[in-house]
């Protein structure tokens, strides 16, 4: 039995549920909360065991909708009369009623049921050859999800099914965003201007992932926006015209402590603010190595994340949800998933992957098409991407302002209001602001202050010398007068 897969299902269900509800609770089956105020309950049977009578009674008595998954379904026969028979690996899935089958990336193990399902509605079925097996079935009120793990495509199918589960009425449009990644003081201003002008002319919201520092790996030279004032001014102008600035999460070395990471993140946000660039979210790059502490740390500063999924990421970000969500494990932060990953125009596999993803997301109402576009790529690549994205039906460009976002670090609080305006509470002490602008460490600042003090004394000492000379001249004059010279 693969517990990891089962536990991933919990995260994935959390992601989906959190898109549809702002109040999601994860509870252990030994500690069931009072279910009176809930409308939906998900039970995930991670292991085969005899459940406590308290749990069974609580769930049987629950008046809302239940969605079961995994083991122990047979213990809830009062609600949904199903028995697990065996297991099977399926290679394709489909919605029912004439929908085309779609192949999974790899075999997906699922439970088979030992029941007559004539009274049940099958929403998703799995295929092995020509034989189908129900993956998601409902008795009209409750649901059972028979998959042991969740392939990404299956995840997408389940996402779509959630619209039925949560009884969402009416058409829900898909959303899309293009995040211009890796903007920093070393970026090509002209190229960036071309990219952003193109987006602007096509009424595509501009989202820029910015870092205040650029280190040239070959020369070791470090650039700040004080070294690239024109670029800084361009970014300021873009922000003023509605572009969204988000922080590129810094890349840390393996050995860095949590305290060091904290200091760097805070400095990055403060430094951007000094240049009047106010990040309202954080962006993780797919090339970064992330640990769980990075996510916890980010959550302490940001209420919104941009990230694609990555196998090397901590569990929380391993699977990209197809919907914008605020899962409980992100502690209320909103995740804007880069479901299309990163634009890699010179990688044929990546392009195929992009195409496949776009097709997969097509089946889900309200899905999000998010992609990271590196700032060093050429305009024609962007044009090609935008043209592809224009083909997505029922799509609108994501209105980032529809949510409230905030960033909170010592001395600075940045809030993006629902009307898109920014409220910035900047109490950064003058000395720190000066240090950021001049790129001074505390020690260098102290030395400059020392230099100023010393310079003042030197001037004073020059004046004393001059005064002494005058005094001497006066006394010599008096002496001469006294001696009649």
């Amino acid at each position: 039995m693969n517990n990891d897969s089962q536990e991933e299902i919990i995260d994935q269900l959390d992601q989906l549920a959190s898109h549809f509800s702002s109040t999601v609770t994860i509870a252990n089956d030994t500690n069931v909360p009072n279910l009176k105020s809930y409308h939906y309950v998900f039970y995930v049977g991670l292991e085969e065991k005899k459940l406590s009578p308290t749990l069974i009674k609580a769930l049987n008595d629950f008046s809302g909708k239940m969605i079961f998954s995994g083991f122990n379904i047979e213990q809830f026969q009062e609600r949904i009369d199903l028995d697990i028979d065996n297991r099977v690996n399926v290679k394709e899935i489909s919605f029912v009623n004439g929908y085309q089958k779609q192949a999974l990336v790899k075999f997906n193990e699922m439970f088979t049921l030992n029941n007559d399902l004539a009274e049940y509605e099958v929403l998703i079925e799995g295929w092995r050859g020509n034989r189908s097996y129900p993956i998601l079935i409902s008795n009209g009120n409750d649901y059972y999800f028979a998959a042991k793990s969740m392939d990404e495509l299956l995840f997408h199918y389940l996402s779509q099914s959630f619209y039925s589960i949560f009884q969402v009425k009416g058409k829900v449009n898909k959303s899309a965003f293009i995040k211009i990644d890796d903007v920093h003081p070393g970026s090509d201003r002209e190229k960036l201007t071309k990219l952003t002008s193109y987006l602007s002319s096509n009424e595509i919201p501009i989202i820029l992932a910015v870092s205040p520092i650029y280190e040239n790996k070959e020369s070791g030279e470090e650039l700040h926006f004080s070294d690239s004032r024109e670029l800084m001014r361009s970014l300021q102008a873009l922000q003023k015209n509605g572009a969204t600035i988000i922080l590129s999460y810094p890349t840390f070395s393996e050995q860095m402590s949590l305290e060091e990471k904290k200091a760097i993140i805070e400095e990055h946000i403060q430094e951007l603010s000094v240049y009047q660039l106010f990040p309202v979210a954080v962006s993780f790059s797919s090339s970064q190595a992330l640990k769980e502490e990075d996510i916890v740390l980010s959550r302490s500063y940001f209420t919104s994340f941009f990230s694609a999924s990555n196998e090397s990421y901590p569990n929380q970000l391993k699977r990209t949800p197809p919907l914008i969500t605020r899962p409980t494990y992100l502690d209320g932060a909103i995740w804007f998933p880069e479901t299309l990953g990163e634009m890699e125009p010179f990688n044929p596999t990546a392009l195929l992957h992009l195409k496949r993803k776009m097709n997969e997301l097509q089946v889900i109402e309200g899905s999000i098409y998010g992609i990271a576009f590196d700032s060093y790529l050429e305009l024609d690549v962007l044009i090609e991407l935008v043209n592809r994205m224009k083909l997505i039906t029922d799509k609108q460009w994501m209105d980032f302002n529809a949510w409230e976002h905030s960033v909170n670090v010592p001395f600075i609080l940045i809030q993006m209001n629902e009307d898109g305006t920014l409220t910035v509470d900047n109490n950064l002490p003058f000395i720190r602001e000066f240090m950021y602008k001049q790129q001074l460490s505390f020690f260098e600042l102290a030395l400059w202050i020392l230099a100023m003090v010393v310079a003042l004394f030197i001037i004073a000492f020059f004046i004393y010398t001059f005064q002494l000379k005058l005094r001497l001249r006066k006394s010599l004059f008096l002496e001469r007068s006294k001696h009649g010279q």
Partner: protein
Amino acid sequence: MANSLFILSLVIIWTMLLYHMFLMQGGYLHYLKFMKPIKEWEKNQQPLPKVSILIPAHNEEVVIERTIKAMLKLKYPREKLEIIVINDNSSDRTGEIIDRYHQQYPHIIPVHTKPPNAGKGKSGALNQGLLVSSGEIIVVYDADNTPESMALHYLVLAMQNDPKAGVIVGKFRVVNSKQTLLTRFINIETISFQWMAQAGRWFWFKVSTIPGTNFAIRRSIITELGGWDEKALAEDTELTIRVYNLGYYIRFFPAAITWEEEPEVWKVWWKQRTRWARGNQYVVLKFLKQIFRLQNKSIMFDLIYFFFTYFLFFIGVILSGVLFVVNSFVDLNLQVGMVSMVLWVLAYLLYVTEVMIALSIEKEEMNSKNLVIVLFMYFTYSQVWIALVMYALYLEIKRKIFKQEIRWYKTERFGSSSKNINH
């Protein structure tokens, strides 16, 4: 690592420079007001005490006669003055010259030291002189000194009118300043030292150091202290700390002026200054161990200052110099940028302006020749001094390890004719 060392060297160097800057400010302010009490004191007309001048002399035939003549010109009642010249184991005509003047001037008292009390250095000679003295106030002059005629008057005036002062210290000038480039360096150095270190420390902290000559001490104090420490290589610094420990302070009163001869050749200068440096290192380490037990807390700062001067400063200078040179060939990734160059320039300008103030206080010393010398002294004389302090430290360490005896080197005299001094 390189960065940390660079920062350390900057901290050491600038701690010293800032302290000197602070002192110079005090020195200038002291200059503006030190003469003010004189009128008041002279009005007080305190009774004049008997004074014993002690002049230790070892093979001083070149200069002793001139010194005695200057003593004879001191404006102080002869009946209240005894000039005790201690001929300490001289092999030249020193004793003969003293005896000759004694025959003519009875208040010039010769003391010819004999074994086992002979040849034990300046401290030993002073102790022998103290034994035969009877003055309430003991004044010390080196054998090559020619005090101005009012020098003694001012030392006693200050002593009588400042009961808290255990010692009054006057100013000394270089009589042979124009002889060689070296004496010009020393001249500028002594003027700067006195107006910066002596006057500055006195102004801010009521602290001064006995310079070894041209000072007056109360007999009761020197007696209580058991005389001069014959083991000390720098008996003046040693005495300074002991006086403070008794609860008195040492007043710097630059109205009392003496002129002395300084080495004219580098070899002699090197020997003399090595002795001073070793002596001060010895004293600093001796009293640093008991720093928190010292009665007068102000002297703690002085000890720390001397510690910085004779131990840390040169380390800081060498460290920063080495890093600077190495960084020219290998990128040490020093994170302190342009500000360190700015500070280097400011350090130089600070030094120049500090010296200019000191020279401007003394008549005729702030001239173009001296200014040029000042500009180059930083790169020459000052650097040699740093090498000297390192050498002195090496000798002191060697002495301690091999338990060597302390030897007192006699400074060679040149007997250059003095300038036309208004005695």
